[in-house]
């Protein structure tokens, strides 16, 4: 084999800039999808908790679609599908401001919201019904009991699963390359094609993904420990 590993070619100049831009785009995708996903997950959880069949079914359908269809397809549906129904002028404007990343954030956030709402729901289900009864018997209203007794326990119980979803989302941001978002894995591929430095390009991307994943995993264990709900 005549292949000589040489990272220096990639860790400088234009290629280094591309890697740094890739990291930045990956983090923007990750943080915004996570934030909007969590927000929507809370809404979905509350809507599903209310005993009204039609809205419960709507949420269930939303969850099932996002859990049973590959994320890449969901990205395609937004990027290629949604654009078709929009007027040309709107599409042109969106493309000017970078439609790919917007669609990617929407698709990833919706996908994560489906999973996270299920985590919240299972957290709530594992709280003994007597907790609600005890809260109500003190004189709290239904909403007061939810606010001060049920939800503070539910998020603690759901925390390990939510953090697991966070890690999956972080790695899942690489799928956005499929619709042309210039995130880290997209840049790695571009650098590899330009420089023919296959191992170096993907090696560096791998190292960065692993490093950030390790930080998320470390945070997971610290937070899960800190907020663990101990029930006798």
């Amino acid at each position, binding site marked *: 084999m005549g292949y000589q590993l040489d990272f220096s070619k990639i860790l400088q100049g234009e290629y280094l800039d591309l890697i740094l831009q890739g990291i930045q785009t990956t983090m923007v995708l990750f943080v915004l999808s996570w934030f909007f996903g969590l927000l929507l997950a809370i809404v979905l959880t509350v809507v599903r908790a209310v005993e009204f069949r039609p809205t419960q079914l709507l949420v269930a359908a939303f969850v099932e679609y996002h859990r049973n269809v590959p994320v890449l397809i969901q990205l395609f549906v937004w990027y290629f599908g949604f654009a078709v129904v929009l007027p040309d002028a709107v599409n042109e404007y969106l493309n000017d401001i970078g439609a790919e990343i917007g669609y990617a954030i929407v698709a990833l956030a919706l996908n994560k919201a489906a999973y996270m709402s299920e985590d919240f729901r299972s957290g709530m289900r594992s709280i003994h019904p*007597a*907790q609600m*009864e*005890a*809260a*109500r*018997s*003190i*004189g*709290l*209203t239904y909403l*007061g009991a939810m606010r*001060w*007794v049920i939800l*503070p*326990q539910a998020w*603690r119980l759901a925390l390990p699963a939510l953090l697991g979803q966070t890690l999956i989302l972080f790695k899942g941001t690489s799928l956005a390359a499929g619709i042309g978002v210039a995130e880290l894995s997209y840049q790695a591929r571009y650098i590899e094609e330009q420089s023919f430095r296959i191992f170096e390009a993907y090696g560096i991307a791998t190292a960065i993904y692993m490093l950030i994943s390790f930080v998320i995993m470390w945070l997971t264990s610290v937070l899960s420990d800190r907020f663990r*709900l*101990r*029930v*006798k």
Partner: protein
Amino acid sequence: MIEFQAVSKWFGSLKVIKEISATVDKGTTIVLCGPSGSGKSTLVRTVNRLEPIQEGTITVGGMDINAKSVNVNTLRTGIGFVFQQFNLFPHLTVVDNVMLPLRRIHQQSRKEALPAALLMLERVGLADKANALPADISGGQSQRVAIARSLMLKPEVLILDEPTSALDPEMVSEVLRLLRQLSGEGLTMMCVTHEMGFAREVSDRVWFLKNGKLTFNAQPELFFSSETHPDVRGFLSAIQKNH
């Protein structure tokens, strides 16, 4: 203070409370006993509307608790309720559990509520556990915290649904000692329990329920005498055999 007038309740087609009429005088302690499934827990749970009734009326302090004008949350702040399984909130420390009614119902700040909560913990002998989590204290201590929490809004009535049944034998006495003390302080209490020593010593009347009916309602002297109701005699001897 509490009056049941021909109260009946059904779970589906099963009638679990059958035309019960009885009165609990202000400042007295009533012990409810009877075989399991006799309706004692269900009956006490109707007093703060944890269980709805289908027939009859229940008045507390002269007020029909099932009247449309009654706000159930306001009603419950005047009636302390203690459960068999304590039902402390596991995400809150002992003192935060005790403070919760003041903070979330009377909207007091932590600073305002803290002195009263600490005083109450001292009263139940647990001032040193204020910052412990429910998972770190014993069953007997948990039940005393639950009692402290139920007393924070100064209810006139305290209802206890088998407060010692989930406790190890050595912890029963610490809870009974507290209840004895509360009973002496003039609180109106209804207590479902199998602790017949407590009934004999502390109660003003003992109610015996069987199959949803209030079969016998007597002062403890008569209840535990040889003149008692034949069903009670059978129940008491069955309990003695188990102890």
